């Protein structure tokens, strides 16, 4: 089967799942349910696309197929922000606090953190990108430890609220937050378009990319910023879910067996949407909300990851 056909098949599957999600079991009050489901599906598609996209770009920049952008420590930072907010203001205030504001604060802090990280690291000439990852990893661990420290201190009832946010969930996505997310993602995608053509060349590695006339440092810096923004927005929207990216990008690699990012990008975004919509369907209709989407994703993803590790020594 050609790669074009595979893309068509994936699109058909994604559309089918979305339709099933929207229109099955509607009952009589569809004028109430449909807009809510529409909103949810929109958030799912948006997040799925952002996660798949940022993971693929991140793996291309780092020339490594088992990394996810979570190594930059952004989702740990998100948890820290949420914990600090509850720690300082208490859960009562937080529920009153504007969700929009929370979203904006989280996104801004994450992007600023990524910006500072890049700024410090790229100032020193000749630092390679793995150094950035190492520092990100250390910061991520630090944020995590600090988060658990605070979680130990707070009231158990308040901890419940934090725990709620530790898992990605599409069950309470807010319209106004979604609007901001759409705007941010649209601008980021527009900004990204001019770097699209460099992705194939970047996958050849740093030296080849420079040889072929890519302004490497400039391009990689910009792409890392795009990745940081996308991760921040999707994490603030639904919670930490970067593991999904690893899963879908690798499925895309296995499926398309090409280096061309036009296919890989479209493919991984579609697979991501299929996984999320399918997963959400299972959560809602099979488990009737007794589990969360991230549990399912992490379970399936974890098994796949082990398979990948066992297989990687044979290469593809």
């Amino acid at each position: 089967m050609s790669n074009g056909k595979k893309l068509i098949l994936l699109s058909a599957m994604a559309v089918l799942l979305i339709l099933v999600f929207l229109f099955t079991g509607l009952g009589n009050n569809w004028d109430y349910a449909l807009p809510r489901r529409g909103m949810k599906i929109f958030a799912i598609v948006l997040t799925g696309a952002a996660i798949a996209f940022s993971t693929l770009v991140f793996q291309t920049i780092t020339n490594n197929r088992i990394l996810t952008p979570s190594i930059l420590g952004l989702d740990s930072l998100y948890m820290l922000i949420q914990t600090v907010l509850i720690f300082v203001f208490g859960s009562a205030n937080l529920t009153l606090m504007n969700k929009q504001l929370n979203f904006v604060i989280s996104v801004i802090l994450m992007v600023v953190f990524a910006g500072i990280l890049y700024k410090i690291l790229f100032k020193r000439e000749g630092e390679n990108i793995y150094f950035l990852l190492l520092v990100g990893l250390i910061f991520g661990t630090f944020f995590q430890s600090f988060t658990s420290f605070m979680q130990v201190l707070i009231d158990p009832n308040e901890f419940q609220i934090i725990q709620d946010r530790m898992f990605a969930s599409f069950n309470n996505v807010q319209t106004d937050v979604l609007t901001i997310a759409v705007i941010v993602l649209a601008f980021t995608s527009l900004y990204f378009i001019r770097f699209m053509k460099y992705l194939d060349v970047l996958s050849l590695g740093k030296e080849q990319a420079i040889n072929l006339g890519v302004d490497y440092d400039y391009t990689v810096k910009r792409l890392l910023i795009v990745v940081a923004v996308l991760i921040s927005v999707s994490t603030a929207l639904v919670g930490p879910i970067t593991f999904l990216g690893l899963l879908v990008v690798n499925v895309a690699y296995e499926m398309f067996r090409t280096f061309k990012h036009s296919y890989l990008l479209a493919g991984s975004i579609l697979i991501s949407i299929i996984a999320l919509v399918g997963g959400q369907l299972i959560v809602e209709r099979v488990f009737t909300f007794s589990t969360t989407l991230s549990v399912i994703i992490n379970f399936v993803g974890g098994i796949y990851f082990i398979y990948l590790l066992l297989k990687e020594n044979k290469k593809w």
Partner: protein
Amino acid sequence: MVEVKNVSKRYGNKAVIDQVSVSIPKGKITSFIGPNGAGKSTLLSMISRLIAKDDGEILIDGEHVNQAKSKELAKKVAILKQSNHLNLRLTIRELVSFGRFPYSQGKLSREDWKHVDEAIRYMELGDIQNKYIDQLSGGQRQRAFIAMVIAQDTEYVLLDEPLNNLDMKHSVQIMKVLRRLVNELGKTVVIVIHDINFASCYSDYIVALKDGKVAKEGTVDEMMECQVLKEIYEIDMKIETVNNEKICVYFK
């Protein structure tokens, strides 16, 4: 012409390249020789802007390397480093087509594909052009990468140890291709090479580096002298003339 003026590169306190000045003539094969750690690869990488220099100036056809636009420079200078591990699933033909990126920015025209075909023919890769890179032998892979550099169609071709890990047959084949690039297409080729006899038989100009400095430079005849090479490599050797080529015998 490539002009290197008082260029230095330091890692910490150690100067890997120390105030080196050298000019590389156009339309010739120039070989960088010297012991391990002499700074040959570093110098080549700086000329091709892969690594930044700390001091000095590098000019290619009168233009500063660091001020030139990367995209424009990629149409003038091509570099191939010695380790080329690719974790990608791509065929020889696809790899070679990457060489056209500076011109096509990813959208190859018919003209671009013509260059790709020519490069593949030049490296005699026609039969295996649809094979995947990870299925190739070392020699085939090296030829594929050189084909990519040829497709890039630059005036200057810089190669870092192109004969690394190749057997006699493939080494000769690659050196002959480089010679043809210079003779037929008028390119300027700069190589880092360890085998002194390949340097002697195929290059026009030799630059010997030692401890980050230019120990001596000159034509093949000037460089292939017992005294000169002894000073550079610090071992005993003899220079014999076989079929009008100067061969260095240093094995015992």
